[in-house]
């Protein structure tokens, strides 16, 4: 790989800002918080081939927090699934890049998501499918912390461990914020690691989920659990809006925020200037 993961994170972060800034509004906070994970998955961890997006036995990534679609599209475009110029069509009528992930529209997207909780169950179904097929694929999936308030997440959590789906590696984007405020004040999901452990999962906690080296190490660690008889949950302690100070400062307001093209360009310039 010519670029290192830190540079890739910058590219993805800038492309998220570019596409949402071009549109003027979007789920900017929860896209920026998962950039490091997407960089590790698409550029390091997953067995995928952008030239053969439907390759048999490929690893899958199902973004259950479907509103992080723009971040996934940035990863796909930078990985070569489609032209980066297409990122500017985000959410325009007739686009292949809708706000929430759609397997029927976007090359490289393996499952439609957006109604929270469902993508996680779909990932569990895909992991079951991979087991039945015996093709050796690993299924990766990402849920939000607010999404973890959905009962369906815990139905799926129970099923995945009961069926020993050890080819499933899940991530929680634990940025502590949801639309109406903090997760803690609205309907607290803590203690999260204990919950997943109680549901029979391996649990790995990442202190800084926006430190790409920590995320990379955690994914490598999670892979050690493949074949162990248990699925793995990696809890990423992240910052919603990470990388752009004024977006972070919006707090819960950055879930779906307005951002002008000029603001986006300024944020991109600053990210590029960083060492």
């Amino acid at each position, binding site marked *: 790989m010519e670029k290192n993961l830190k540079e890739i994170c910058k590219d993805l972060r800038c492309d998220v800002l570019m596409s949402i800034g071009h549109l003027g509004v979007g789920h900017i906070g929860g896209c920026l918080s998962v950039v490091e994970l997407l960089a590790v998955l698409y550029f390091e961890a997953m067995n995928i081939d952008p030239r053969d997006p439907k390759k048999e036995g490929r690893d899958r990534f*199902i973004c259950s927090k479907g509103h992080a679609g723009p971040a996934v599209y940035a990863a796909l475009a930078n990985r070569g699934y489609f032209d980066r110029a297409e990122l500017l069509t985000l959410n325009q009528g007739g686009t292949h890049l809708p706000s929430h992930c*759609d*397997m*029927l529209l976007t090359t490289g997207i*393996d*499952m*439609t998501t*957006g*109604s929270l*909780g*469902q*993508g*996680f*169950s*779909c*990932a*569990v*179904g*895909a*992991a*079951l*499918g*991979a087991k*039945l*097929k015996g093709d050796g694929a690993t299924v990766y999936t990402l849920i939000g912390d607010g999404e973890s308030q959905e*009962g*369906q997440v815990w*139905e*799926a959590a*129970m*099923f995945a461990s*009961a*069926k020993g789906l050890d080819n499933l590696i899940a991530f929680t984007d634990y940025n502590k914020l949801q639309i109406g405020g903090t997760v803690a004040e609205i309907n607290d999901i803590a203690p999260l690691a204990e919950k997943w452990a109680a549901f029979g999962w391996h649990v790995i906690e990442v202190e800084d989920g926006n430190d790409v080296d920590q995320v990379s190490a955690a994914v490598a660690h999670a892979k050690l659990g493949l074949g162990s008889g248990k699925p793995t949950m990696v809890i990423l302690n992240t910052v919603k809006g990470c990388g752009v100070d004024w977006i972070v400062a919006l707090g819960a307001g950055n879930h779906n925020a307005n951002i002008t093209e000029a603001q986006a360009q300024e944020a991109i310039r600053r990210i590029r200037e960083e060492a």
Partner: protein
Amino acid sequence: MEMRAMYAQCLGELMEKDERLVLLDADLSKACGTFPLRKRFPNRIFDCGVAEQNMISIAAGLNSYGFLPWAESFAPFATRRVCDQIAISVCYAKRNVKIVGTDPGIAAELNGGTHMSLEDMGVVRSLPHLVVFEPTDTVQLQAAMPVLHAYEGPVYMRMNRKEFPTVFPAGYAFDLFRADTLREGTNVTIFAIGLMVSEALQAAEVLAAEGISCQVVNPHTIKPIDKETVLAAAHKTGLVVTAENHNVIGGLHSAVLEALSHDPVPVWAVGAEDRFGEVGKLPYLKEALGLNGAHIAATVRTALQNK
């Protein structure tokens, strides 16, 4: 033979032929008749436990992986409980998942009002891509099962579990998208589905003795309804009665009205009058909700008087 026994027999045959077929249930495979299949196909049947929402989305995920899942539960839990999962994981994502809801409407009998889904068709009928089908008897079910499996898209089948009168002749040719005409007539057309088909045929016999000639048609697929047959049969007699084990809102009655909306004839309804069910055995419930041949015949008489 019970409907569920035929359903399980057909599923077993399909599973022998097609390794992609996997079966999901939510702790109701005993009730749905498929429990014995678990021994034959131990690696292809998954009990999701009492977690229907997860079951439907898992089915969609399995289909995204190339499997052809069937998912079963009681009708209320296979529809209203999982409406959003059917809408997004299955229909919006165009997943080829077959959903089976057993004991719809008054067939739920002793499980009572909480389990008596008189709204299942209304809940799912407005979801794009979804086919909605109700078999009448074991003959039609047996003919339909391979067709449903071969159909490349999502289907909801509402199916009685127990033994019901056989209406269709052995060897009957089934077309998923073609309504079946069971009796020719000239004064009124009765469109009936599910357990109301045999009731409609009984009503037709009674009315024939009174000199009233009934055409009886079974639009077993409520969505997409066979407009051509519905329009032809409705205009042939100029008067329609619909009969369904469902609320008169949202199911067959609505589908027939929609089909006739540009070229209407009077359409009278026999079904649950926008009410919930209640506990009881089938004869009581048929009487209590007016879901029997006598009520169909009475409705036909009233309709003719008002024509």
